């Protein structure tokens, strides 16, 4: 047992408890936020120091490899941005700010465990740690919409957990192990014994698990919860859900399907076809539902469903380029959606509204803010020079190499459709008449969050090579 390997998670959980303690001692909640934000340096530095290692501990329950470190750093960055976005926003739930930051850190710890385990029970427990923390965070505002978001997320999340557990139980029953690599071996052996036939329980178990994870990434047909939850939750948490929670879901899907279920030759089931269909459905339903939305949070909720579809293109490619593309896409999407939601937080703080109609003429009242939101929306469409462009090119290219031309055409068509509703916001901001000429000031912490996000969106898009290497370095663990 090597506790050093557990360092990033341990220090993060310790930080969460420290935040609760300091919260008791001080009335100045900015101190608590600063502690939570700056404290993230410790787990981040620890994770970086583990980069390049491939080790496992706790009887294989914990694996440290470049894949898990990649996602750990992504989650820590997302948590830092959420905390920056929340400093002003969290005044709305004044007596519980300390708990708010602590639960964000615990959710991050859960996601980090999700990305670095190879064992079904640990996957389930860590997924629940992340989910339960997020149910709480979604209902933090305690008004009607936020409570509805919390209860919907909780109920549907519980159902999806049950489905996931059922799948895990079937898979365990058919293979006799909860460790992904042993499951892979057991499937291979049973296929050799039965002349290539796969036990139906394994197929059922895998499909159930895909359903359970599909809920986390809001893939169609498991997306019903997303619009209401994203709209009702506090806006920084909506950013966290789209940027980090979705990435955590993908981290687990990739690990389970590449290590346990897709490691055999020939594949037990045509997983690429399954993911291709899921992907096409998800991006189309997400995009078409986003068009009529008048509330920008709700529109971005549907857009995040559509993006889950685009990311699934990379999964459907089922190759190392595909996984590398998914990792790069998730990184870029995290910064893009965080930037967009930070801008929404800044705007709604002054405007008191999330309606797209109220964004009219914003470019004259807050030119920089409008520019940042526009850049993020352009990245969501997938136009250069942003990260969204390179990410889409990369996953589409990976799918083309596997002969998934129809899926790529679907993706391109969907990107064109999506331009319509993203550009509607840009048009309102730049061409609409402002309700007043009064400028919109932005709080200092939000400026930092906005700047970091938009610089990342541009820098990762203009100089993609090191980041693509970062992503493929992570992918190589799953597909050598």
């Amino acid at each position, binding site marked *: 047992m090597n506790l050093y390997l557990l360092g990033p998670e341990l220090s993060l959980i310790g930080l969460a408890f420290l935040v609760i303690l300091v919260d008791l001692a001080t009335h100045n909640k900015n101190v608590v936020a600063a502690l939570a934000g700056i404290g993230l340096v410790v787990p981040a530095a620890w994770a970086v120091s583990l980069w390049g290692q491939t080790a496992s501990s706790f009887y294989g*329950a914990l694996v440290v490899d470049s894949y898990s470190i990649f996602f750990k750093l992504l989650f820590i960055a997302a948590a830092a941005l959420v905390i920056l976005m929340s400093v002003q926003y969290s005044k709305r739930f004044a007596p519980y700010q300390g708990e708010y930051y602590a639960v964000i850190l615990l959710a991050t710890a859960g996601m980090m465990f999700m990305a670095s385990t190879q064992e079904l029970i640990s996957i389930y427990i860590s997924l629940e740690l992340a989910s339960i923390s997020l149910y709480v965070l979604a209902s933090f505002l305690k008004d009607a919409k936020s409570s509805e978001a919390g209860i919907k997320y909780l109920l549907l999340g519980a159902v999806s957990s049950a489905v996931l557990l059922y799948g895990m139980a079937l898979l365990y029953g058919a293979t006799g192990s909860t460790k992904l690599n042993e499951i892979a071996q057991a499937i291979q052996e049973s296929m050799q014994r039965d002349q290539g036939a796969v036990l*139906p329980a394994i197929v059922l178990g895998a499909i159930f698990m895909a359903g359970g994870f599909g809920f986390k990434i809001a893939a169609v047909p498991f997306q019903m919860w997303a619009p209401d939850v994203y709209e009702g939750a506090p806006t920084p948490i909506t950013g966290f859900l789209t940027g980090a929670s979705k990435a955590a879901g993908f981290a687990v899907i990739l690990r389970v399907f590449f290590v346990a279920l897709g490691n055999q030759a020939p594949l037990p089931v045509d997983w690429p076809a399954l993911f291709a269909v899921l992907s096409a459905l998800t991006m189309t339903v997400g995009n078409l539902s986003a068009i009529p939305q008048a509330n920008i949070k709700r529109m971005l909720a549907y857009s995040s469903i559509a993006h889950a579809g685009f990311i699934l293109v990379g999964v459907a490619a089922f190759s190392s380029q595909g996984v590398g593309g998914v990792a790069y896409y998730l990184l870029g999407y995290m910064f893009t959606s965080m930037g967009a939601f930070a801008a929404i937080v800044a705007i709604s703080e002054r405007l008191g509204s999330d309606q797209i109609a109220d964004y009219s003429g914003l470019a004259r009242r807050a030119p920089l803010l409008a520019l940042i939101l526009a850049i993020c929306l352009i990245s969501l469409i997938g136009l250069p020079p942003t990260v969204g462009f390179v990410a889409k090119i990369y996953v589409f290219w990976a799918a083309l190499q596997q002969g998934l031309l129809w899926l790529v055409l679907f993706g391109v068509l969907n990107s064109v459709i999506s331009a319509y509703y993203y550009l509607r916001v840009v048009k309102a901001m730049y061409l609409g008449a402002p309700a007043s000429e009064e400028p919109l000031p932005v709080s200092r912490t939000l400026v930092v969050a906005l700047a970091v996000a938009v610089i990342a969106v541009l820098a990762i898009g203009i100089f993609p090579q090191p980041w693509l290497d970062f992503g493929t370095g992570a992918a190589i663990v799953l597909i050598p």
Partner: protein
Amino acid sequence: MSDPVLVVVFYLISAITVVAALGVVLTRNIVYAAVFLVGTFAGVAGIFVLLNADFLAAVQLLVYAGAIAILIIFAIMMTRDTRKGSRSNEQRWPAFIMAVLMLAVLLGGISQTIWPVSVLAPLETTTEKLGKLLLNEYILPFEVVSVLLVAAMIGAIVISRED
């Protein structure tokens, strides 16, 4: 499970479990549903006993048939006027069709599978082995559960406190 008495007992307990589960979803009175749920939990505990899972059976009785059932009944008492009965479910037919489809898929999948069966004799007592497993091989998820409980507790306090 070749002993004919055990087979009869198994089917009896299974029948009780299924009937109680049907009661949970079919009754209109939410308090009756909660009591039926206790029957389901107890039936599952009986099946665990037949499978030589003594510890699991005890936990099932203590936690599910005991604590969780009481929690559910308290929640019902505190949240709604039970004399009015519960609202009818408009989606009962779609739900019924989905449930039947699910049952068919599961029955098909499970009966078509040749399950690997352990050749070892069942353990006489499982508690000690489980304890050792939890604190050795599964120590990491076991400890993460405690963090999860902290998160849930903080959440429950924040959400339920009136301010």
